[in-house]
């Protein structure tokens, strides 16, 4: 066993060693959590959410010859349908939103339910490092799954264009730029929604309460188009819409606001995320483990 004197000496390390240790710890948490996020029984739901839009879109493009012909002849319409229904409606607002809700809310709440959070709390890790490690594990999982979902859906959009026009669209046209933009939108959505849902999971452990809060948040995001321009800026979807390569149709009742340029949207979103994570870090420092009361 270790000599307490030796341990005390070890504990008075310098700050650069601390940073390196925190990074090491964050990577260790990341490895543990990513494995759990992908392989646990809870992951089934996010696989379904990530797979469903691609399968639906693939079925439409592959098996409905009429639709395929229409998309091939009028690719602009295909792009609009993809942007408004497949990407916006199915991927962004449904799969990414609920997938992030499930993944990130369960990062802490799930451990409380499984009564295994204390193993982390009894490790020599600053709790803020734990928050960061878990958050990044959620990001890796959600970006991989929903990024793949986005790429898969884009693949079938290109397939609908028909060969060789699709290659031309990708290589010489705006195809590649559009695809990367959609991917960036998915990543940004995971970053923003992830932070929000992780905090909800930290502050509220009751499943009903967390679901109600998720639905309230969903409603606010969905009816964002009715909000005055200033309030729009407080939502995640506003910043993501600002990046859309194909205009998103918000309907006749929408209150049109000035779109936020990408160089404001992206840092703005990251700043809001950072603030939310700071709130999570503050919360977790005073967090107690009471499994008996759950």
């Amino acid at each position, binding site marked *: *066993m270790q000599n307490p004197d030796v341990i005390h000496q*070890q*504990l008075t390390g310098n700050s650069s060693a601390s940073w390196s240790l925190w990074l090491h*710890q964050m990577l260790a948490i990341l490895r543990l959590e990513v494995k759990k996020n992908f392989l646990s029984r809870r992951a089934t739901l996010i696989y379904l959410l990530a797979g469903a839009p691609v399968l639906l879109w693939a079925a439409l493009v592959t098996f409905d010859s009429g639709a395929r012909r229409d998309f091939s002849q009028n690719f602009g319409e295909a792009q609009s349908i993809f942007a408004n229904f497949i990407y916006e409606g199915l991927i962004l607002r449904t799969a990414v939103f609920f997938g992030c809700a499930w993944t990130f809310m369960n990062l802490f709440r799930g451990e409380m339910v499984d009564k295994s959070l204390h193993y982390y*709390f009894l*490790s*020599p890790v600053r*709790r803020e490092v734990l928050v960061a490690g878990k958050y990044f594990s959620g990001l890796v999982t959600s970006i991989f799954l929903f990024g793949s979902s986005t790429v898969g859906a884009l693949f079938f959009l290109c397939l609908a264009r028909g060969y060789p026009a699709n290659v031309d669209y990708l290589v010489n046209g705006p195809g590649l730029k559009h695809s990367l933009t959609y991917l960036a939108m998915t990543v940004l959505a995971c970053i923003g929604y992830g932070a929000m849902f992780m905090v909800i999971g930290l502050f509220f452990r009751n499943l009903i309460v967390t679901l109600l809060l998720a639905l309230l948040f969903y409603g606010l995001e969905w009816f964002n188009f009715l909000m005055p321009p200033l309030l729009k800026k407080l939502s995640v979807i506003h910043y993501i819409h600002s990046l859309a390569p194909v205009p998103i149709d918000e309907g006749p009742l929408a209150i049109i606001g000035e779109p936020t340029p990408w160089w404001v949207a992206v840092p703005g979103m990251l700043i809001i995320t950072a603030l939310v994570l700071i709130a999570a870090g503050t919360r977790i420092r005073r967090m107690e483990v009471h499994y008996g009361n759950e």
Partner: protein
Amino acid sequence: MEAALNNNPEAVMEQTVEKAAVAADRMIVFEDVSKFYGEILGVNRVNLNIAPGITSLVGPNGSGKTTLMNLMTGLIQPTRGRISILGLSPYEPEKLFRLLGYCGQFDSFPAGMTGFEFVRAFLPLHGYKKQQCDELAWRALERVSLVEAAHRKVAGYSKGMRQRVRLAQSIAHQPAVMILDEPLNGLDPMARAEAIALFRELADEGLHLIISSHILHEVDTMSDSVVLMNNGYVVAEGQVQGVREEKIQDHPLQIAVRCDQPALLAARLFTEPHIVEARIHEDRRGLFIRTRDVDRFYTQLNRIVVESDLSLESVATVDDDLNAVYQYLIGTGGQ
């Protein structure tokens, strides 16, 4: 150098202060610690100084043992008071848990892990490299005799094996302080004996072991000191013998005497004011004495033996153990 220091009073003073600080850093200290769960009392006004060795927390369910342990580990926070573990606060997990291991009562594990994976899983968080983690995990599994089952899923373990793998997980990083909440629960007699031997071994290495248990007989035999708790209060603390002498001096001690003339002995002793009861055994070859003054009893017994030519077979205290202390102070017996 030392001689030079000894001649310099300031240096000596400095050295003394330093030594005192180091001594304080070797203790687990509770200063006026209270914990309330809303309006429900967890523990109240606890003041303790726990030295290295095995310290047992004893008390009925709800007496505050687990609350005290969770306070030490920062899993819960005190409503009032201050806790220091070898000079560190429970709010410094990054430092504290390098020298503290906690084996709690929660019978839950991260899903899908084998015993080895579970013991190893959290070692990288201590900053150990991959190979070091493997070595430490195997060493810990070896200490709890779980090497053969190491690659089986924890979910398939028996209760005793789960208890042992949790113990392995808590000692894997070689802590200086171990907090063990009911560590003997679910263990078969052989495993219990092995666990107690392990605790003794760790205590002999200079570790602090804080153990809560209901199995008083085992606590009695393995503990260096004991903290008796009831309804959130510390009702007694210290060495088992000392606790008894200090806290229940007015309570009569029961002694069994085997001899050839129990009736004579009873008659002689009954005249003494410190003797509360003298009851002859059914087989008429011995008697039970209850006395308030053990020392006087033994002196008088010696005198009576000589004077009356009594043939004495054996003399033994019946209730000079922790169970008796527990009963006297709390009013309920252990298992």
